[in-house]
């Protein structure tokens, strides 16, 4: 099976991002770029699938030369090919524009690969903007079936079965291929690259595909900081009984109890 995994390059999600007062924008200093966590789960799912059932995994992202970091990483942990899709403006692009350039670039990637994609995967949401829209909007641009938040995919006749995560359990769906899906966190973690694979990935070419975005439907305006919560009372006493008694008095006067 030919699988495409769409990446977004995001700032390290373990770094707390604050406001850069001089620009009024997020302060991304100290947060190294990386592939979005849910996209790395999608890649691991795709890599495992092709290792078991055959096929190849292609990775792509939308952006500029700087966004190749996540593709280099992807090439070291399972992707065999990678493409950079250009044409949007990171400052102003909305989710639908990202989806529109992906949709325009996909046939070009298929042509270059010499094979059509059977499955197009996106992470369920990015860890920076947390928009959760690109996979859904991309799916609307193809006449393919679509499932969100999958944690497993297996072959079934000519199509596939997908296990979809719900709030209260899972659904199993059967669908024909080609298909589009978004990926949630499966019960395994993405693999780490070997040094050999890392070096090999660094040498691999990443072709660029230019595409024209659709008109923006959403305009991104100012960032702000959410209202700060005031810290209340902090009780510290060597005797836990005393500490709890003090706490109870506060809870009663605050009408919590």
């Amino acid at each position: 099976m030919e699988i495409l995994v769409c990446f977004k390059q995001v700032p390290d999600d373990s770094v707390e991002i604050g406001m850069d007062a001089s620009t009024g924008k997020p302060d991304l200093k100290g947060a190294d770029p990386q592939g979005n966590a849910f996209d790395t789960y999608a890649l691991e799912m795709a890599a495992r699938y092709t290792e078991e059932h055959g096929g190849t995994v292609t990775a792509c992202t939308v952006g500029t030369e700087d966004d190749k970091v996540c593709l280099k990483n992807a090439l070291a942990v399972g992707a065999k090919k990678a493409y950079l899709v250009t044409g949007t403006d990171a400052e102003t692009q909305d989710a639908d524009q990202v989806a529109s350039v992906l949709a325009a670039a996909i046939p070009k990637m298929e042509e270059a690969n010499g094979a059509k994609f059977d499955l197009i995967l996106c992470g369920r949401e990015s860890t920076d903007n947390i928009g959760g829209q690109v996979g859904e909007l991309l799916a609307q641009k193809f006449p393919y079936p679509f499932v969100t938040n999958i944690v497993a995919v297996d072959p079934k006749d000519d199509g596939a079965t997908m296990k979809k995560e719900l709030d209260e359990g899972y659904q199993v769906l059967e669908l024909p291929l080609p298909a589009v899906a978004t990926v949630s966190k499966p019960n395994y973690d993405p693999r780490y690259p070997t040094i050999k694979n890392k070096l090999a990935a660094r040498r691999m070419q990443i072709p660029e595909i230019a595409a024209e975005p659709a008109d923006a439907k959403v305009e991104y305006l100012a960032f702000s900081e959410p209202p700060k919560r005031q810290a209340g009372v902090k009780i510290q006493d060597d005797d836990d009984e005393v500490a709890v008694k003090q706490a109870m008095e506060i809870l009663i006067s605050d009408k919590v109890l």
Partner: protein
Amino acid sequence: MNVLAFIDVKDGKPIGTSLELLTAAKEIGETADAILVGEGLEEAAQAAAKCGAGKVSVVEAEGLLTEEALSSILAQAAEAYDLLLLSATTLGKTITPQVAGKLGAGSANDVIKVSVEDGKVKVLRPVYSGNLQQELAIKTDKAVVSVRGGSYDKPQEEGAAAPVEKLDLAAEEDALRSKIVDVIAEAGETVNLEDAKVVVCGGRGMGTKEDFESLCGALADVLGGVVGASRPVIDSEWISRTRQVGQSGKIISPDLYIGCGISGASQHVSGMRDSKYIIAINKDEEAPIFEIANLGIVGDVKKVIPILVEEIKKRKESEG
């Protein structure tokens, strides 16, 4: 602005966060209608009708709907409106862009405020784990937006009920290619964290699965609340992932939140910072959760929680 609110139903009743949409819809819309999709919806439709909707439409659809089928139905229903509002649940967040894509509408997920300026929808939404927020203007005539639970008050029930009418819509053919062949329920997972008034969350600082279960469980029980957890607890499989509070888990805003052995990483805080009252119990006095807690107790959860449970019990008994 003509606004339609999708009322999601669980066990025959509207989920609380979807009724909140009617408050937002009435605030910004000349019309604020509601739509329900599924089967056995009479009671839920009546509940929505009493919560201030102008009109309640019920689309009868048998059996389990795929998200594609539901998106198709909602897109058809939303044709007659300027704005479709959904609750930013797991389902709502995935349906929102699907409907928007079908309508060619601009959309936004998980917003905490919706307003209208010059006939266009404007929203505010948290980004970067809730450390920042960003304002967005939707430029298209139509908009589809999912609203985070707790952002608007639940509407009061009114005396007069709005008319409820059947709406004859079905999913389009091309939305029926994926089929649900099995449903796997997670044992004991009927709890709705988003609608709970009291949530007791345990973190890695609870030490062991046994202590997490017994101590957080006892505290939740005495307060009539439910147990949630931070990501490390979910990863250690001490409790089902459906109880995860924070980014990529549930976003909650209960009346009372108690964090036990939770340090307060931004990924967790982004899911509970809008709680009305926050209590934190942690032995690390530097834990960042104390910076947002109304009441912090520096101490060992294993010692503090049992005493606290006893004191609350006594207090409840004395109150009768």
